[in-house]
């Protein structure tokens, strides 16, 4: 990943180079690159005068951060209690089977990353799966494939347009 120092610098400046804004700065970087690139963290460490090891500590403590690049689409399967009793784990297994990866990983073609989330707090419509920003309500084992196809197709369509 080609990290633009200017960009990271602008995030740091936005919070007046304050050490207490470390989490906020990392959130900006995560939002920009979809993960925390190593170069960006080294730069933040130098600018904020926080040892890199402490930054890695924060980055690995909170689930919002990732040190690995993510795929084009992120599939998040809700693991909340309500989704759990309604069959959430089976939905996750089906995604793992279809994508041939375990949760927390990205497919080789970099199309999909599969993650779990503690609870999306929309328990009435569980089991819930969120792909990118789109909520899929009351999912079942059977429509896992349909959901994936929808995003695979989009990919193809985009290619055609280009």
């Amino acid at each position, binding site marked *: 990943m080609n990290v633009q120092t200017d960009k990271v610098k602008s995030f740091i400046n936005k919070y007046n180079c304050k050490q207490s804004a470390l*989490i906020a700065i990392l959130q900006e970087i995560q939002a920009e690159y979809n993960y925390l690139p190593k170069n960006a963290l080294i730069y933040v460490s130098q600018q904020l005068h926080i040892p890199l090891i402490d930054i890695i500590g924060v980055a690995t*403590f*909170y689930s919002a951060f990732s040190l690995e690049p993510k795929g084009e689409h992120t599939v998040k399967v809700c693991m909340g*209690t309500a989704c759990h009793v309604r069959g959430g784990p*089976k939905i996750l297994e089906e995604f793992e089977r279809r994508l041939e990866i375990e949760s927390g990983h990205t497919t080789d073609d970099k199309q999909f990353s599969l993650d779990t989330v*503690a*609870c999306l*707090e929309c328990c009435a419509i569980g089991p819930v799966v969120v792909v990118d920003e789109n909520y899929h309500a009351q999912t079942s084992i059977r429509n896992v494939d349909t959901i994936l196809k929808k995003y695979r197709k989009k990919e193809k369509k985009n290619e055609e347009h280009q």
Partner: protein
Amino acid sequence: MKNTNKSKSLDQIKKIIKEQKQARKEDDKITLTVSSGTCGQARGSMEVIDSLKETIEQKQLEDKVRVKVTGCHGFCEAEPNIIFQPDNIFYQHVKPKHSKDIIEKTALNKEILDQLLYTDPSTNEKAKKDEDISFYTKQERLVLGDNVLIDPTDINDYFSIGGYNSLLKTLETLNPEQVINTVKSSGIRGRGGAGFPTGIKWEFTRKAKSDEKYIICNADEGDPGAYMDRSLMEGNPHRVLEGMIIGAYAIGANQGFIYIRDEYPLALKNITLAIQQAKEFGLLGQNILDTGFGLEINIVKGAGAFVCGEETALIASVEGKVGEPKQRPPFPAVKGLWKKPTNINNVETWGNIPLIIEKGADWYSQIGTKDSKGTKIFSLVGKINNTGLVEVPMGITLREIIFDIGGGIPEGKKFKAVQTGGPSGGCLPAEKLDLPIDYESLTEAGSIMGSGGMIVMDENTCMVDVAKYFLNFLRDESCGKCLSCREGTQRMWEIVNKITEGNGKKGDIELLEELAYAVKDASMCGLGQTAANPVLSTLRYFRDEYEAHVVDKKCPAGVCKDLIRYIIIEDKCTGCMACIKPCPEDAITGELKKVHTLDENKCIRCGACYEACKFDAIKIE
């Protein structure tokens, strides 16, 4: 209800509130309020709103009908739903195709569309208005109720229901001690988990000597299955702000923070906008309404860690550090954020404050039980007919919530347990259904109030699996500081996992119990101290289910994969072939109209066939 005269003095705000209230009173437009919180939107409320607006525009009815995008109406099962004002007609599961009829028939001609009405599953009767629906009748929606009335992105709409009147009353007629005394005698206790008396907490921080003090709103709602804070922030953010401003005035804080969960984009958007609007009207800032009292509120986004719901961990996170709890005392009221006195309350607690100031401590303390006052919002989810957010007076029984408001268990299944309090709580069985709910009764029964999650479980829920689920959550979320919690949750999970895999041995249950008490006794913060509750409560009420797993190697609920098998019932199988395609392992074979066969050696027990069969011809054994 537009108002462009931004004002900064107390009298001017008073005038604006009066005008807005009058405008609401005189308003003769029919208003369609569309429930559009996060889960409403996930179910397509935005499409409904667009199509309603389009219809109004096409028919040029702008002066007669308006669409109002509101926060969650609480009845999540019925999303997307519309409540008509002033008539309170309630339409559920609305789709864009209904727009024309909704506008032309109902809004203009008061004709009811039968197919959009809610039908009571027990009586089969249709309900016309929200108050006729059993889900709403037993509730007392004192805090959440205003969600239906207002556009959360418009401060004027909040003014029009008397919003910020409590703040004006506070600034005009009460000194800080009087505010604290009111909150103390109201009897309100923290709605976030432990239930500490709010007024006493405020008093501690007020009395602490320091040049600077802080208040924090804990909106890092991390309990799986609880979403009342999100709903309040999305649907009525000014109410939370108003509570915070009153609190800051009483405590003597000039700086406030809202620590909000990263996964709540809509709540973040609405609260950010609310802060901006409050500033424009002089309700926040250096010199609030010319009274000399100042408060700035900043937003801090959480980054996803359950332990940050704990006060000292939350403070560490606001400071930009790893969210590890610290030993108390010193309590945050003495030494909190940046070592200054800090008062932390949860969203729902702040949301109760304007009500207490408006109606008075005496009125408020009439609601509820001896030691638990006011209402509590619960999120009623899981195996329940009427999923949603319910606000009820303390002291109501579990049975009333689950069966009267919640409409009982779907598909005629049997109630097995209700889990309250999230990962720190426990599972209560059928014999506890008549328990009046308050902080003490829940604790005595082996659970806790927590933030108000209420997950209903039926006969198909395995209680050992539920314990495993929470342990898995907790071993992941344990910050790792205390050995007892870090290793204890891991080891408890290993034992329970072994049991669900059919490898449980004699003595495992006893070992699990012993370990659970050790984790409870030896951990420093609330997470570790309560981490054993899911295990201890399931052991207390459902020990036979553990024993069935260990001794008989059976999962009575049919959940634990290694202990069950799927079987095709020959008499019921019609040979429709519906189960063959979904099977990922090609374990099912058969021809059309002939009984299919399932190869158990190939079967991975994913349940795809079970889900696909329309004839109940596949059973779990």
